[in-house]
């Protein structure tokens, strides 16, 4: 798909790649319909909380070192700042670097919604630049500024002459998309259009761009890539503006999560011919090997990679086989973003755990290059099927399923989601760290964590006995799709 970096706006996932947030059926049906193009998403006449795309978009940008994010909106919108502030400090400290990134709100009030506040915004940008001397400035809109039509693009254009670092408008109206992952695309768009420079002439690189969340496995990935004569550049957590400006020079781009990395991967490929590694992700054994081999192919390092795979297999496969014996036959429900749900369900299948229902918070029918997501293609090709839904994080749907299927475990990457499973008495595994199932070593650890969670259920069972959940008996008797209706 053609990217337009002259416009600061990014089309939503719904419009760009046909993403949906409502579906109930089976995995096969979902995959087949998306392949032949007949999939239609549903909307809900009743819904619970979703998530704001600005949280995704701006927390990505705020993870970059020494930048300023200016969130133009009411104070409540910039509350993500506290999380970003905390995370970026903790992550920088963990790695032993410093970051002076700031995230400021403009504290828009009632008057501003009537009369506008572009003049103040201009002053705020200049003041932020003076106060913090950031290496780049991102100016974001919000629902309120979007509806009253504040022209942040013009303000940004206008101050460019007075500011010597990259400054870019970032369009984060929360009502724009029902898919919060659109926020990831928005942040990628801002970085590619304002920070990434064309490759310098004559620079030879062995770098590989690695889009992830919090780089917790950084040291071991650096170590591993060294064996292949590759050097990973992790984004955006702890990235510097300087590093980002050279993304165009790398040998390839890869990512930990297709939902997270798809936009920048394809954008760098289209604009600067940096190949994007398209494969199932690194979770589990098959995923890890497939991914490594793809990198080998793209960067011409297949021999080294085959040797590594052989060594690692010898160490870990026997141990994984051992744990698998105890996991055999257990059942699981999982609820995650689509970049993980269909990858983790593959891993559970590998470990001998039976997935009875998989919920993806949204679903991308295809990726930027027009293909069905690799994780879906894999499941389809390997004849793996189970009940599946696209659930927009809807807690009442999760609870309905957990009550009906009473699985041995619930897995989610969203803490608010596992909490409810635990209150229901279901052991829950919070797959918070994106590297929790990465490669052989972490797949083994993951299998052991599952075993721990299902073997001691004291807290879940005792708590559930004494906790009354808010849902009515009526709801538990309904089909999970009771509130879905044809999208309009």
């Amino acid at each position, binding site marked *: 798909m053609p990217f337009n970096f002259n416009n600061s706006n990014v089309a939503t996932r719904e419009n760009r790649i046909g993403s949906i947030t409502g579906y109930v059926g089976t995995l096969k049906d979902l995959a087949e319909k998306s392949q032949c193009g007949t999939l239609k998403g549903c909307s809900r006449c*009743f819904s619970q*909380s979703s998530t704001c795309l600005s949280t995704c978009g701006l927390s990505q940008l705020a993870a970059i070192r020494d930048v300023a994010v200016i969130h*133009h909106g009411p104070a*409540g919108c910039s509350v993500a*700042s506290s999380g970003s502030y905390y995370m970026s400090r903790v992550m920088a400290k963990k790695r032993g670097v410093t970051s002076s990134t700031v995230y400021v709100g*403009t504290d828009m*009030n009632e008057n501003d919604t009537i009369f506008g506040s572009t003049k103040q915004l201009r002053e705020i940008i200049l003041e932020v630049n003076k106060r913090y001397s950031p290496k780049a400035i991102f100016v974001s809109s919000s629902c309120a500024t979007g509806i009253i039509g504040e022209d942040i693009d013009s303000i940004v254009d206008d101050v460019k002459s007075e500011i010597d670092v990259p400054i870019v408008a970032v369009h984060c109206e929360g*009502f724009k998309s029902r898919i919060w992952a659109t926020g990831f695309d928005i942040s990628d768009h801002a970085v590619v259009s304002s920070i990434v420079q064309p490759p310098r002439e004559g620079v030879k690189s062995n770098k590989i761009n690695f889009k992830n969340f919090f780089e917790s496995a950084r040291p071991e990935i650096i170590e591993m890539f060294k064996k292949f004569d590759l050097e990973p550049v992790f984004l955006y957590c702890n990235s510097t503006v300087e590093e980002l400006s050279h993304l165009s020079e790398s040998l390839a781009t890869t990512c930990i999560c297709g939902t997270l990395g798809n936009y920048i991967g394809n954008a760098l490929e289209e604009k600067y011919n940096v190949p994007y590694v398209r494969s199932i992700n690194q979770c589990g054994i098959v995923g890890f090997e497939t991914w490594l081999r793809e990198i080998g192919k793209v960067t011409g390092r297949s021999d080294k990679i085959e040797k590594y795979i052989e060594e690692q297999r010898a160490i870990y496969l026997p141990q994984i086989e051992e744990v698998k014996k105890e996991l055999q036959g257990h059942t699981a429900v999982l609820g995650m973003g689509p970049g993980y749900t269909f990858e983790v369900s593959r891993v559970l299948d590998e470990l001998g755990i039976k997935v009875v229902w998989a919920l993806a918070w949204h679903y991308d029918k295809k990726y930027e290059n027009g293909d069905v997501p690799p994780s879906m293609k894999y499941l389809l090709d390997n004849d793996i099927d189970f009940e599946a839904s696209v659930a927009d994080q809807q807690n009442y749907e999760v609870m309905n399923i957990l009550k009906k299927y009473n699985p041995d475990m619930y897995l989610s990457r969203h803490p608010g989601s596992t909490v409810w499973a635990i209150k229901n008495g279901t052991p829950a595994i919070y797959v918070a760290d994106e590297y929790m199932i990465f490669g052989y070593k972490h797949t083994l650890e993951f299998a052991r964590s599952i075993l721990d969670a299902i073997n001691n259920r004291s807290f879940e069972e005792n708590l559930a006995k004494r906790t009354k959940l808010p*849902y009515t008996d009526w709801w538990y008797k309904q089909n999970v799709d009771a509130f879905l209706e044809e999208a309009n």
Partner: protein
Amino acid sequence: MSEIMENPKGGCVLAGINSVLSAIHRTCPVYHSGPGCCMQTTAADQGQSGHKHSCFVSGVSIPSSNMLEKEVVFGGVNKLRTTIQGAVDIIDADAYFVLTGCTAGIIGDDIVSVTNEFKTKGVPVYAIETPGFAGDSSLGYEAIWNTFIDQVIEPSEEKDDKLVNIFGIVPYHDPFWSGTLEEIDRILSKLGLKVNTFFTKKQGIETIKNSSKAALNIIINPWLFKGPAKKFENKFNVPSIRFPGLFIGATDTSEFVREVGKALNLDSELVEKVIREEEEYVYNYLAQAIGVVSWKRFAVVADANNAVAFTRYLANDYSFTPVLVIISEPIYRQEDKERIIKRIENLEYANPPKILFLSDQYEINEAIRNEEKEITLLVGSSNDREVALEKDIQFINGAFPVNERLIFNRTYAGYKGSLTFTEDIYDNL
């Protein structure tokens, strides 16, 4: 007016309303707002309040109309109607409250008409029209109480001369709210009073409906709840007293107990007996740990209520020297600022500290960084830890936001809380 706010402490009006509703047993908020507002506002207060969240509905389980472009253009009342209906069908709550996000507020959706459709069918659904951009969490606390006064509380001719209502402690926006209300409840119960904290003891919408029977409204806060208190008095004939700040330790807590005793005409012998017992209890412990902490010169960064409490306890009861007090929540009325200053400056034992009103983190950090006098203890929020580390000052995370500890029923307030606070000073040397 738009201005720079690095790390605002708390969220918008909806955050404050949501905090209150989340703390009332079996009450369900329904957001008429964009898809992110539930998570943002829950993150704003509950998410930074010592890791405690509402058990009933919170975060991902809160019904929300998740308004998108279509609703922005064509109006969102239809989506709101089906969202309320769904909430009533699937959530087994005693009352439902519709909150207005910025989007619904600006496009002017008529949420009152929609909620009235349900009301006429006997469903307890109430509309709160104050939109997100109207202010911060504190305003949200007042907005929801105004809603209760206007729509929920039932008038009552009979008064119960032993029943009191407690106001001014905002759930979640004060991370210690549970323990603090429990301590206030414990002390006042010893005086023979029945206490509506509204947020503990599984008190629910029935308690709120019947709160007009109270003999007295007790506001524990130097500035919050001015409007609602007046409204409450006019409509339900319940007078109020304001105690100008939370209390930690014997001096202020006993003053509080005496004021309540006076306002309700309680038997002064009983009042003094309770005070004697409680003070004895506290000092019996304090006498057993002396001299390990050398005297500290301290600074406080907190909301007004807690800033008053920390400063007065450390200065009046624990011989520490106050240097700098920063009120880190926005205070708009001059009279409120003066009341706060007066309460902090009017110390029995120490020279008054410098007092600043700053809510922008940059300015807060600068003020501490550039303070000429030596500071050896800082009581503040998680956001203030960094500057404490930088200046190598002992730090206690005692004010909102609190990200680094789990808080169930811990409190620093009252008699017992003062012992916990003193323990924590030792814990963190």
